[in-house]
């Protein structure tokens, strides 16, 4: 184990996979000479050269399409979106080709592509650059969608994504890049896609969260422990396909569920989780499922309004208390 930043963990994953497999190459805007807008590709051009670390013109649809073409014939491109907000320019390529080609070719072509970059609420990046983009992708059959919360997850999940034979949408976070944590240095360390993790054991209530919201929920769990509430924290890590088994298992244990998500709540991840938990574990629930979500509005630019838009610790704590029937809930 070594302590490193989330950004360094991603860099390590890329470097290890590029050393391991000559088919892996990185492509995107500013990934080479500039080493990435957020420096995730630091040092890669120097080690692997311009054939495998490819700076492109500014055209998300184009370089995603090029990556898809290269993936069809067996290469393993890792496409960097400078931010995931730009990925919607490439939505047709992602949704109509990357996600569909395996199906429409009757299994003859795979598209083993990873599309990665930061997304989700950041710090004062405003409405067009600060939004939870995962919702646009996890609706699509054929895509896998990953949101890694910790540096360890960032490394283990990115390596699995690169080795996966399907298109993987891998959304990091601007605000998590400097976060430090323990990361195994073993180049064989991977975390399988489609597996959730219980980050904190508890018995009174299950709270599901990922990325920045998970860090916030952890603080809430510690605070509520002082009030005698035992919170279990589950991080789905892969949003599609989702590890429903771990989530249902946790709900069967705690009988209460709160889902926290940073994005706007309408048709969000919380709605889907509330829905399958109700379908599969209705009789186990002692209270209605609560969702704590971002406001259903674009992200404001002003710092004070931005703070109001995303779920606060107080809002999360209040929801937990409510489902537990505790004071202040």
């Amino acid at each position, binding site marked *: 184990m070594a302590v490193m930043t989330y950004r360094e963990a991603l860099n390590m994953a890329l470097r290890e996979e590029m050393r391991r497999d000559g088919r892996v190459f990185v492509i995107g805007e500013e990934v080479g000479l500039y080493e990435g807008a957020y420096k995730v590709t630091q040092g890669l051009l120097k080690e692997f050269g311009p054939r495998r670390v490819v700076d492109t013109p500014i055209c998300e649809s*184009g370089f995603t399409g090029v990556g898809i073409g290269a993936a069809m014939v067996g290469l393993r491109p890792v496409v960097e979106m400078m931010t995931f907000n730009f990925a919607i320019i490439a939505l047709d390529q992602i949704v109509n080709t990357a996600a569909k080609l395996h199906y429409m070719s009757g299994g003859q072509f795979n598209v083993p592509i990873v599309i990665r970059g930061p997304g989700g609420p950041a710090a004062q990046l405003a409405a067009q650059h600060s939004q939870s983009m995962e919702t646009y992708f996890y609706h699509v059959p054929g895509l896998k969608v990953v949101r890694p919360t910790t540096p360890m997850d960032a490394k283990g999940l990115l390596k699995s994504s690169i080795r996966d034979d399907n298109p993987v949408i891998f959304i990091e976070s601007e605000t998590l890049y400097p976060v430090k944590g323990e990361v195994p240095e073993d180049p064989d360390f991977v975390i399988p896609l489609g597996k959730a993790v219980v980050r904190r054991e508890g018995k009174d209530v299950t709270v599901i969260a990922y990325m920045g919201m998970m860090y916030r929920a952890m603080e809430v769990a510690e605070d509520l422990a002082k009030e005698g509430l035992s919170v279990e924290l589950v991080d789905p890590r892969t949003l599609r396909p989702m590890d429903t088994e771990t989530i249902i298992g946790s709900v069967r244990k705690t009988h209460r569920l709160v889902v926290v998500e940073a994005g706007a709540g309408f048709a969000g991840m919380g709605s889907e989780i509330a829905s399958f938990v109700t379908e599969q574990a209705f009789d186990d629930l002692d209270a209605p499922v609560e969702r704590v979500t971002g406001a259903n509005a674009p992200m404001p630019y002003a710092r004070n309004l931005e703070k109001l838009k995303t779920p606060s610790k107080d809002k999360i704590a209040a929801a937990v208390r409510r489902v537990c029937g505790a004071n202040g809930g």
Partner: protein
Amino acid sequence: MPRTVLEPRFHLEHLSILDSEGHLDTALEPKLSPEELKSLYRAMVLGRRLDERMVRLQRQGRIGTFAPIKGQEASQMGSAFALRPTDWMVPSFREAAAMVWRGWPIEKLLLFFAGYVEGGQPAPGQRDLPITIPVATQLPHAVGLAYAAQYRGDDAVVMVFFGDGATSEGDFHEALNFAGVWQVPVVFVCQNNQWAISVPLKKQTHSKTIAQKALAYGVPGVQVDGNDILAVYAAAREAVDRARAADGPTLIECVTYRLGMHTTADDPTKYRSEEEVKMWEQKDPLTRFTAYLKERNLLDPGLEQQVDDEIGEAVRRFEATPPADPRTVFDHVYAEMPPHLRAQREELARRLEEAGTPPPPEPAAAPPRATPMRGQRLTRR
């Protein structure tokens, strides 16, 4: 000196070798053997007869909507004929003749337009992408295929087809731009058939030609008489050779005409005149090539019958295919079957069994993958 005249060092050619009056430019006539000429002709006749048969099949409700190629046989066959089997062909949705020439079985094409997944499944090792329905999205894929060839040191060339309408899409620009910057081995073939459904070329672009769009990307562009099989072949030959020699991409504009409808769901009499269609019928690519071959005594009198028999056999095989199994709807969503899809597949299988449907087949195993590119080639990147 506020205004300096730049002298762009590019020029544009229009190539015509065998015109609709039967005049032949012998200096430009490509060197094709009698056997090659005959197989080209056969592929064009097959394309025409299959097209006519498919329209009838569609009208009878035996296949679904499709895009007829009538009138465009020369522009697609002249291009595809310049490829080796080890090259890649990336079609749009109006290249039936070229697809069959490349080895796509006719019944598979029919299966595609009847909605069978097998219709989109190239044979293992076949270097063809399946039909692309979205407009222009296949152009960046072709650049990606060519980048992969360059990456691996393969000598494969990639040929991608699209229509005049596709040149207005962003993906056309992005693909040409990439191909120019990277100098990858791609031949872009635009079948300019004058109409994007009801939108004529003059409403698609104010540019005098489509070929000239290449120049802005630093890529050679050429316009050819797309109904002149010899001219199309000559232009494609040159472009394919250039790509293989690592001298970069080319844009070929084949000026042709869609004699039929956009798709079988379209009625072109609503937006274009009979005179215009009649004028283009005079330029039919088959008429002039037939005359050319007749003069060389290369016409085989039994060809039409032979081709019709081949099509008839394929239609029979196609119609003997049992309907798609509902359980297969969950296959190939992912490279492996995730638990939620397996559960849904099993539930459907159980319900079908309860309803007396025969037991489910195992999830289809993926067929052997198309062989990845191999080989050696120097690139000048």
